Each structure stands twice: as C-alpha cells, then as structure tokens.
C-alpha cells in the first residue's frame, strides 16, 4: 500500500482538487484506491456525492470502537472508495491527544487495509495540528501544492525542515505548483526557476482554470467530467510523475 497525503499549512491552494483527481486517475489505472477525506469541511466527500457522516464520528474511529473498514463507501468510479468526512473530525485533535501514540493513530487505523488497497490518499485539513502530524507520519509521499509566491516557498521550506526532524521513517516530499496563472510574470518565473533550485519540486504545474472550480458544481472529478481538458492533462502528468513504483 502506498500512502499519499495532500497537505499544506495554507488552505485554498488546490489540495482537495489534487486528492480527488489523482485518486480518480489512480483508480482508473487499475490500482485499488482509497481516499480518506480528513477535512471536516468535507469538500472531497461532497464532490463524490457521499453523505458526510461516519457512524460514531471521528471519536469512535480514533478510540478503536469502530474499524475504518466499516466507514468505507464505494464511489461512482471503478476502483475508488472513500472514507467520508464527518463534522466531528473538527475535534479530532482532542480525541487523538487522549490515545497512546497520538501521532501514529491514522497509520494504525489504515494498517488492516494494507492488502485491500494499493493506493491511499489522505486529504488533510490545512494547519499544523495533531491530525496533520499524524498524516505526515502515515504518508509515504506528501504532495504539497504550492501557489507560485515567495511566501509559499518559505512554507515549503518550513515543512521540509519539520519533516526532516522526524525520527525514523520520513515521508518523501513532492511539491508541485498549483493554480498557476501564466499571465503573471512572477508565476512564470517561479515555475521555471524553482524546480532547478530546490529538490522535491515536481515538473508538472497545475494551471488555474475555471473548469477545476466547476468540480463542486458538477460533483465529480474534473478528470471524469472533462477528460480531454487541459486540467485533466495536468493531473494526468502529475499522476505519471508521482505514481512510479506503485505495485
């Protein structure tokens, strides 16, 4: 099982869009894929038309009263299942704090599904919290969307330093530019320069396109409702870059 997490301390940078579309492409490629919507806002859950409710809420999962397995819902797409968001996830930090190994709980919950899924995506809420720390420990690869701006680069460095201080296993960090507006000089320059200057930045950049925003209206991944769009082609390239060595 290979675990990807889409993560950024900042919100509104294209995290959920990346998680939803890459998870859809992964399922399409024949990998048994699970997307866990950890964000209490439940945007990914809404896009897949699943009701944002987990029996017993986040508390029952965190405390081990319910298996993650029982919360899984099939999406409308072959090979892609979803663990929906639940509004109680907003208190997950507090619930995690009461457990034995509070930063490893999400990995523990996923372990029984090791043989059942080839690929897992964790769509993480923005911020630095126990939930996000759990996600950083669970993931094999962190997919970090960056808006091309000087401050984003600083955020990326902070994250790399934070993860670099982990004892033992550390996730690989793969950042990519998101919401790129080619009309802006700064965007063009950063997209061209940064991958050469820093390691861990992918070649693919996801453009800012209104069709991506239409996902909430269409309630489907853009890779499903507009398979020939520039947006799909961007996510396809991104998936090709990050999906090497998935067995």
């Amino acid at each position, binding site marked *: 099982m290979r675990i990807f997490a889409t993560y950024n301390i900042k919100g509104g940078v294209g995290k959920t869009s990346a998680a939803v579309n890459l998870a859809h492409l992964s399922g399409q*490629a*024949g*990998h*048994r894929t699970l997307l866990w919507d950890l964000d209490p806002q439940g945007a990914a859950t809404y896009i*897949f*038309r*699943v*009701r944002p409710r987990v029996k017993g809420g986040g508390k029952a999962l965190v405390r081990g009263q319910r298996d993650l397995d029982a*919360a*899984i*819902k*099939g*999406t*409308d797409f*072959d*090979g892609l*299942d979803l663990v929906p968001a639940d509004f109680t996830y907003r208190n997950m930090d507090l619930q995690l704090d009461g457990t034995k190994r509070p930063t490893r709980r999400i990995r523990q919950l996923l372990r029984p599904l090791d043989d059942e899924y*080839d690929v897992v995506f964790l769509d993480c809420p923005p911020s630095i919290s126990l939930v996000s720390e759990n996600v950083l420990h669970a993931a094999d690869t962190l997919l970090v969307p960056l808006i091309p701006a000087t401050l984003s680069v600083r955020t990326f460095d902070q994250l790399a330093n934070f993860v670099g201080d982990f004892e033992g296993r550390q996730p690989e960090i793969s950042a990519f530019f998101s919401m790129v507006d080619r009309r802006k000089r700064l965007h063009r320059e950063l997209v061209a320069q940064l991958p050469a200057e820093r390691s861990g930045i992918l070649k693919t950049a996801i453009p800012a396109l209104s069709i991506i925003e239409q996902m909430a209206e269409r*309630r489907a991944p853009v890779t499903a409702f507009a398979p020939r769009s520039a947006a799909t082609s961007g996510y396809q390239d991104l998936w090709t870059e990050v999906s090497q060595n998935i*067995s």
Partner: protein
Amino acid sequence: MSRTWLDTFDWRLYAAGLALEWAGDDAAAALTLRLPDGRLLRAAVPGLSPPVHVADLPAGPLRDALAGPVWPRALLPVATVTGSVAENRVRNRDEKTVARVLIDRPDTGAGWIAVSPLRGYEGAAARIARRLSRVDGIVAATGTPYDDALAVADRSPNGYRTSAVPKLQPETPATVAIAAILGNFAAAMYDNAPGVIDAIDTEFLHDFRVAVRRTRSVLKLTGDAMQPDLIDRFGAEFRWLGDLTTPVRDLDVYLLGFPDMAAGLTSADPRDLEPFRVFLRRHRATERRRLVRGLRSRRFQRLMTEWPAELAAVQDDSGPAIADVARRRVELAFRRVIKHGERITADSPGDMVHALRKRCKELRYLLEVFRSLHEPTAHRRLVAELKKLQDCLGDFQDGEVQREAVRAFAAAMMDEGRVPAPTVLAMGELAAQLDARQLRARAELVGRLGPFLSQKNRARIATLTGESR
C-alpha cells in the same frame, strides 16, 4: 457486442476460481478478472489479440493477480458469447450511485440481471434485488454467465486430458489396464501437438514430452505383459519423438530459468549474459523449425492414428491381473534401486550415480502408474522419500550436464565470433556455480540414501504391494 472468456490450455484460472473476460471493441477492449471473493479487477487492453502472455498486459493489479497462476502459460479463448450488455445505475437523491444493475442479453440462452452493490450501500442493493425477484419471469440464478457460456463452448474444463493415469481396478487384465494407461498418454500427445506447432507457450511441449516419456517408460517396464510385437513396432517411434523434442525443451529450460540464473551471479554483471540469451533464442528458433517439420510429417500423423487404434484393439487375453503385474514390477524396480544404492559411497564415480538415478526414475514411474492400486499412506511416504533422493540425484546430474552444456555453448559462441569477453567470463562463473551445485549434491547424497534404503522403507514396499487393494 461479443464477450470472450480466456484461460490457459490446462484451465489454471478455472481451477483457481478466477474468470477472465475480454470485451469491447479493439480500441476500447478491456479485461475483467473476477476473483473468488467476487471482486473485479479491470485493465484496458486496446488491440489485444490472443494468445495473450501475461508479460504483454499493462502493469497493474490485474496483471499481478494473473501472473502467479498463469506463468509461463498463455491465455487462450475458451468461450465466446455475442449479445448485448447494458449497465444501469440506481442513484439516490444526491444522484449518487448506490447499485449497478447489469442486464445481459446473450443471442442464445437465458438473459441475466446482476445487481452489484457498491461498498457501504449493500442495503440498497438487497432491496433492489428483492423487488426484482418478485417480478414475474425473473428467477434467482444459481450459476454465472460464464457457466452458461462454458456449457456450449468447444472446450470444457472436464475435457482437458493430461498424462494422468486412470484409476485402475486390481482385477482388470494387465493388457487392458496398460492399454488404458497408454491411451491416456496418447490423448495428451494428440491434444498438445497443435499448441507446440503454433508456438502458443512452452508448456505444450513440456506436457507433450511428459506423455512421450511416460509412454516409453510404461512400454519398457511393463510392455512385455502386452503383445510381443508392440514394443518392436512402436518403441522406435517414441524414441524418435523423444529425440525430436529434446533440443527445444532443453533450450526452453535455460530460457525460462534465465532470470534466476542471471540474478545468481555474484561477480559478473547479469547484463553480461545478454548475448548468451540471444544465442539461446537463435538456436531455439533453428531447433523449433526442425521440431515443427517432424510434427507435421506423415510419420507423426501415422503414429497418432495407428497407435491409438492399436491400443483400442487390445483385448482381454486371460493373462495376469494388473495388480499382480504391478506388484512384481514395483518389487523388482525397488530391488534394483537397493542394489545400486548400496554400492554408492561418497567417492563413487559419476557413472554409478547416474545409473542409480535411472533406476530411481523407473521406480518412480511405476509407483505413479500403479498409484491407485497402492495402500495410500505407504505410497505417500515412499514417494516422499524417493522424491528427496531424486532431487539430490537430479542436482548431481543437472549440475554436470548443465555445466558441460554451458561450456559447449560458450565454445559454439566463440566459433561464431563476436562474443564479448565479459559474456564468456559470466558464463565461466555460471559453470563454476553448476560445478559447486554438483559438489553439494554429492556431499548430500550418502545422507539421503540412508533413509531410503532403511528397513522402514523396505517394509513400506511390502505394505504397498503385499496385498491388492
């Protein structure tokens, strides 16, 4: 549209509870693999054209699930159904799919409606199925569309003929029982020959040779119980078939084992062996042409007609029962193994070890052929002991034969010119490894012989053959 189910010639997927369906037009063709737990794995396979080798499928879970059961066989069409298939989705208020309803209308036979639940929405699917079952004319299914397709297909899992030995009755006259055994082997040769000619996969030749080898052994070890001219008339023909098929099979063994052989190198780079692989492939192509000419010859066609006819004409000659013949032959073969085995020491020359191996093979063939007449526990334990001894003898001889073959191949490659020095060095390392294998087998041999020659095993032979079951 048409749907075709694929399986190996020997029904490996069927035996493993798997069903592989190939559907859709050329560009949009897809494979769907149904696992024993009902899960489906899919892969797009534009332009697919059977026979299909697993290595040619796109990488992914479907290929991974097939690789283990199928390798090294190819997938062939077993049944095709034409008709229409429509997938309908049942959605809830949020327009979310909660179940899929597949309506399958084959051009012939009964139609199917399948309700597939989506994970987490099982209740909805159960409700839909309950409602459908109340509709007049719809009845609950007991099989699958694949079962229906198989029922009218040209091939069926029960129709696959291996070189297995039929179940024997102790009192059956030996002539009739041996003719039945040989008849099975002849059928396996007949069935596998077209796959060898069409180069579908390497296992057609393997199974063909198993049938030839078993035929020769049965003729040699029990043929005198038959009419005297049988061996005279057909013995040479099966020796010819054995010789005809040996070179290609030997090269197949090298090529199938090549990745392991290359991975086992410690000093040389595995890539250095690539010219050796190219050489083996080229020689295989030459040898295959000779093999195919032989299998298309009138001599082979005549053998495949006359031999089964001869066996079918065998009648009860009021001679001994098969159980008597079996007992005498197994005891004799066992005594021969004991005689050869007791002479072996750690320093015995290779020829003596090879002679012991041949006697062990004869005993093994007889045990397999007459298995259904034996006491099962004694049979199982004896075969297990014999197998361990044979593995050791096999390592001893294969080590020697293959080492000499690698040297001969290297010499032939040098004669042909342009063989890179690193390749010759890597082949030298291979030869050294095979040499070490033979030495290890020699060191083990005496230790292996002890248990086989023990009183316990001698007693097992008595139990095995002492009374007809």
